[in-house]
């Protein structure tokens, strides 16, 4: 068997693939964060909570309404996005004129309250959510056993990331969004209702997080805590990528997922800090992040 640094090559492929899967979640989440930040200048600390909500809504839909995975994949993001829109309308909106730190603090409080509520209502050990029948089982790739569902996660997250990228780069709505990022006032002067656009953006970001949550439900235990563990890592991903470009957020998400995956093979003890270490190094070399524009 071919070996690299004492690791069989095949195992390495397996781990790379696993890294890619985790990267899918990072990419989806940092994409949403980047969009919200890009337009609203709000660091959405509630992003982890919205991810968790996605998973929970799917669980609740299944348990109380018998609605399965496939409809949930659409419904949950819509529901969470709607909730996000309401939050933006009622609260976040009032903070735009203030120091962006207030947005951070507000969403931090929101995250605490939402997670606390779910912990109160549903306990902390989590809820079961089964893999949809169509995606159950696995495929033997020779070098590893790949659960079909994981393959699906990679494919669908790539599609959604690219889709979001296309939406923002290639459509009229996207043109409004990009233009508003550059010069919101002028876009408004042209007669575009930027406030509504902002609401939509927040809803979109929250919806993306929820989508990632639904994707995660069959893999990870659906628990009120699933988001708070994730969010700090995603923040680091975003700092590494820089907040300039959407593609940057996506690419950084995947790359860091893979980097983390490899660390799990070579030095598993460091796997939860590797992203932070990379962040520190990037900060030293390129303070604005890999894809970030100059501050």
């Amino acid at each position, binding site marked *: 068997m071919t070996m690299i640094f004492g690791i069989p090559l095949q195992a390495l492929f397996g781990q790379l693939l696993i890294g890619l899967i985790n990267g899918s979640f990072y990419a989806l989440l940092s994409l949403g964060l980047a969009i919200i930040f890009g337009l609203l200048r709000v660091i959405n600390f509630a992003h982890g909570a919205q991810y968790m909500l996605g998973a929970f809504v799917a669980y609740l839909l299944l348990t109380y309404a018998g609605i399965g995975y496939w409809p949930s994949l659409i419904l949950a993001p819509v529901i969470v996005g709607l909730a996000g829109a309401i939050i933006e309308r009622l609260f976040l909106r009032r903070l735009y004129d203030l120091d962006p730190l207030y947005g951070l603090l507000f969403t931090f409080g929101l995250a605490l309250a939402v997670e606390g509520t779910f912990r109160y209502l549903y306990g902390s050990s989590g809820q079961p959510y089964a893999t949809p029948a169509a995606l159950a089982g696995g495929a033997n790739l020779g070098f590893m056993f790949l659960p079909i569902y994981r393959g699906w996660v990679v494919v669908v997250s790539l599609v959604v990331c690219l889709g979001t990228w296309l939406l923002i780069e290639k459509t*009229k709505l996207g*043109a*409004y969004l*990009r*233009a508003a*990022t*550059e*010069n919101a*006032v*002028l*876009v*408004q*002067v*042209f*007669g*575009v*209702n*930027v*406030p509504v656009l902002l609401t939509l953006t927040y809803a979109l970001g929250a919806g993306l997080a929820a989508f990632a949550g639904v994707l995660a439900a069959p893999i990870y235990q659906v628990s009120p805590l699933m988001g708070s563990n994730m969010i700090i890592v995603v923040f680091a991903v975003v700092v590494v990528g820089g907040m300039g470009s959407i593609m940057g957020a996506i690419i950084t998400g995947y790359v860091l997922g893979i980097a983390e995956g490899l660390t799990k093979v070579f030095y598993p003890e460091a796997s939860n800090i590797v992203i932070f270490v990379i962040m520190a190094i990037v900060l030293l070399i390129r303070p604005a992040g890999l894809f970030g524009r100059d501050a």
Partner: protein
Amino acid sequence: MATLLEVQGLNAWYGESHVLHGVDMRVAEGETITILGRNGVGKTTTLRTITGIVRSRKGKISFDGSDMMQVPLHKTAHRGIGFVPEERGIFSTLTVSENLLLPPVVAGGGMTLDEIYELFPNLYERRASPGTKLSGGEQQMLAIARILRTGVRLLILDEPTEGLAPVIVQRIGEVLKTLKERGMTILLVEQNFRFASRIADRFYLMDHGQMVSEFPVGELPQRMDTLHKVLGV
């Protein structure tokens, strides 16, 4: 002629600094008006206040007979006001054609895309390149062109000739004349005196946040002395 835009006692502030001190002006339907004045007297601010960008303001602005003071910023365009800002506001992440198509059509009667491309052939050639890769003159044309699609009735332009080569200035002058012939009302801020005098029907002279005088194009020769003094040239 019917009054299209009327401004009375307009005051405006940037944070703590009080910039406009009671601006009065009136623009009739189909007229072309030029505001003259030195750097920093508040010309741009006047335009930005009329369009609603500067919101700490007091006074009266009415457009086409209706009060504009309470209208939200994104509704001004729908009332029929189009704005070409001093810095042009071309979006760098958008291509030329995206820039062109960005402002929503607010009323019928605007130019079609083909008409616009006919008027500005350079834009057609460069329609797929990023907006800010255009030369300064082309950017200015783009900034004007994208408003023409929308069907607004009042075109507000802030120093459209700034930093442009004379030949382009001439071209823009022709465009504005064409628009005027089509019945568009134009409110213009301009430092380029010669340019302004070729297209304007009437002038306002601004100093220290106020309109200090107002005269039709015919009186220009008599006014040259005052202009020299106030404009400091």
